[in-house]
């Protein structure tokens, strides 16, 4: 198990390096921040001067190396736009996004897993068809549209939930539903397929021959096997939520990282965007690593290899 874990960690580090370099490359090539800062109609010398100041005239690899070095020392750069250290800005916006993401996962769990399990146990029944229909519809809805519809419903028609801001816990209900709704279909299907596959497996047939039946069969023999893949998917989903919360936060006017990212992009704030991309990637990598390790620990076939 230890060998497996160390292998995964090394891989994660390599991926992190590759990803940060790729992001760096893409962003540097896509734009020229010097001219953006200088403004329109600025003279070439001015632009060149700014470029020198920011160190943008060095070869890309050197720029990347220097950036990497700074990151290791905890210096995440300074925002062109906000004129503050990027690190501080990120820390400021992080809690909102984190809370939102976790609540969204919670919503997904309590909806998707029971629905998926029931759908698998009674295939082609009304519940199965309804939940599949729900899944297909939820998958087709743009999240911002769902958000706006919810705002109309609950903000105007039946005002129970607040529809903007992030001050109280209640503020998170609607956004969590919107964000969570997006992964309900996938998790539900995964659960359904997982449970169906396990129910059809040889060892469940053996369990039945041993006298297991009904709820006891489900809880003791089926679920542990069926939910193994779901566990890893949930971690990945959490990663997606962190990176994909921009729309939800924008619509509900919450001060999270997503909205902050949008503002930085529109403002041409390359260092911030760069750092955010890398941060989200690292979080994702970390979460998948966690998922892998969790999966390995839960599945004796991997744990004891």
């Amino acid at each position: 198990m230890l060998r497996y874990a160390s292998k995964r960690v090394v891989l994660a580090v390599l991926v992190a390096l590759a990803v940060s370099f790729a992001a760096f490359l893409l962003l540097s090539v896509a734009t020229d921040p010097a001219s953006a800062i200088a403004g329109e109609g600025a003279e070439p010398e001015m632009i060149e001067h700014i470029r020198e100041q920011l160190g943008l005239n060095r070869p890309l690899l050197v720029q990347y190396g220097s950036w990497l070095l700074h990151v290791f020392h905890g210096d995440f750069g300074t925002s062109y736009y906000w004129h503050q250290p990027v690190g501080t800005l990120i820390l400021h916006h992080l809690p909102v996004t984190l809370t939102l993401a976790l609540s969204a996962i919670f919503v997904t769990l309590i909806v998707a897993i029971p629905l998926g399990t029931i759908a698998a146990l009674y295939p082609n029944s009304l519940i199965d068809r309804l939940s599949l229909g729900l899944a297909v519809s939820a998958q087709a809805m743009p999240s911002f549209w769902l958000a706006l519809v919810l705002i109309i419903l609950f903000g105007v028609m039946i005002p129970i939930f607040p529809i903007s801001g992030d001050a109280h816990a209640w503020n998170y209900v609607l956004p969590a539903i919107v964000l969570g709704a997006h992964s309900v279909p996938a998790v539900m299907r995964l659960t359904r397929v997982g449970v169906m596959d396990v129910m059809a497996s040889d060892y469940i047939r053996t369990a039945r021959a041993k006298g297991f039946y009904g709820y006891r069969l489900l809880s003791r023999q089926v679920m542990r096997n069926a939910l193994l893949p779901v566990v890893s998917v949930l971690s990945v989903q959490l990663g997606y939520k962190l990176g994909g919360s921009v729309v939800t936060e924008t619509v509900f006017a919450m001060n999270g990282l997503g909205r902050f990212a949008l503002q930085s992009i529109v403002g041409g704030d390359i260092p911030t965007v760069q750092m955010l991309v890398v941060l989200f990637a690292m979080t994702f990598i970390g979460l998948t690593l966690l998922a892998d390790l969790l999966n390995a620990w839960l599945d004796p076939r991997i744990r004891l290899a």
Partner: protein
Amino acid sequence: MAGRPLLEVRNLCVTLPVGARKLHAVRNVTFTLERGEALGVVGESGSGKSMTSLALMNLLPRSAVREADVLRLGEHDLLAIDKQEFSRSLAGKRMAMIFQEPMTSLNPVYTIGQQIMEMTLPGAARSAKDIRDRAIYLLERIGIPDAAGRLKQYPHELSGGLRQRVMIAMMLMNEPDLLIADEPTTALDVTVQASILKLLMELRKELGMALILVSHDLGVVSQSMDKIAVMYAGELVETGPVSDVLGAPQHPYTQGLLASIPAARDGGARLPSIPGTVPALFSLPEGCVFAPRCIHVQPPCRVTRPPVQSAHNDHLYRCVMTPDSHRLALSHPPAARANASRPSPDTLLSARHVGCTFTIRTGLLAKARSLVAVDDVSLDIGEGEIVALVGESGSGKSTLARILLGLQAPDKGEVLIAGTPVQSVPPFERAKLVQPVFQDPYSSLNPRKTIGQSIGRPLELHGQDSSAEREKIVERTMELVGLPKRLFNNYPSQLSGGQRQRVAIARAIILKPKLLICDEPTSALDVSVQAQILNLLLDLRDELGLSYLLITHDLAVVDCVATRIAVMHRGRIVELGSKDDVLSSPGHPYTRTLLGSVLKVDMPALKARAGHAPGLPDHAGLLR
């Protein structure tokens, strides 16, 4: 012992909805079983034997419908009892079942110990310590050393044979009255098979347990059972004491089955075989279900279902023919060709000191292990010969086959074909010299290509003929292998296993190679179809002058068609010689073990014990 039989089954019927149609998988199966008796249920694929055992254990798929007049175990009426009660009081307690696939039949996330000990319900009379002690006792009894330590192991840490033993121990925890074993050894190697069966028989005697053994292998059933039930297409066609049914079979199907088991032939004579294939039963046939394939068929057979007749006491069969009135129900093979090809001294393929080692690396940073697949193998195949390469799984025979085909380069040694190293022969030339035929008729054909396309692809690739000429050649080849021309535009999914194997053979011979390397060509086929394919291979040898390297684990097949035998074990050839020499006086201990493990139908002994019909002539060539 007086009293009612332990298990009574009368008119058991199982129907399965498949799409819009209904499949009558089991029809009117009737039999009884006394306490401690062993019943072998025999049949080929599609016979309904597995469905019958699942029906007894209430393990049928949810959509299946089970009906019977009587279904009784002891005092329990299995028809009346509801599923929950059955699971609570009978399943795993009074009746138990072990399955065919030990590799997937154990829950991967629980230890062996947990799975064995959970057989006993919480709240039962035993204490936890008692349960554990019993588990350890059973594990040791079934031949697993260090039982206490093993309890903590997970299924994936055990081999297939061990897992099956664990299954047996598990199911015996509650000392059931009846154990049903559905092909328990089919997925295991021959040597392991023998020991598992021996174990089952011993345990049966010890516990006084009744046993139902479902198998397609007549050899297995003939050695150890008391009674036998032969099933065909969902029906029970013959039942009775083993010696009676196998020594003096009455039903044409049983007779045909016995006769088509591969065994020694003289001078390349052909195996008798049952024509046609097992039907899928979507509609209840009028008349006898075997009529379309029966040589003795008469007009009444197609109209009304034959009655059950008794040949002698308990020996029952469903046919219109009176006992012992008919002979072999087979297609008589044409007399052996007078000038059957004799192996000529020319060597076609020569392997010299071939070695192949694999490096296995389990991950990006794991250490590499080396596995010696083939170790110093030297083998010659002459023109017109049929060399059999015998070995169990893991012996390296498939790797050797790929090397001989030129698809893999050996690490050591060389392979010469027609004098030139096979690696340096250009692929197109090599293709015209040696071709493969594989084991699995389901994966040897591209599902997206029609039969015609698959067979014709070699010609197309070599670009030699026009498309119209190609079609003609393909049709001629199809005729040669016995495929009806109308199948030209069909897809593999529409053909049976035997037909697919014929397509594979057609594809292999269309370039007119000199040597065919057949890797277990009949192992995945039913016994009756197996005989057809073996006959085809022999015919092709005579007509096209082919030579064969026949890789198989089935010694009966070897006995039937081979001229020379090479025995392979752990990558080495441990014995090489003419067929008669090797089979009658094997030199190497492994060969002896292999020969000893094979379970054959011992016809003379059975005949001697048969209760009647002393005058029945021997089926030609079945003497062992």
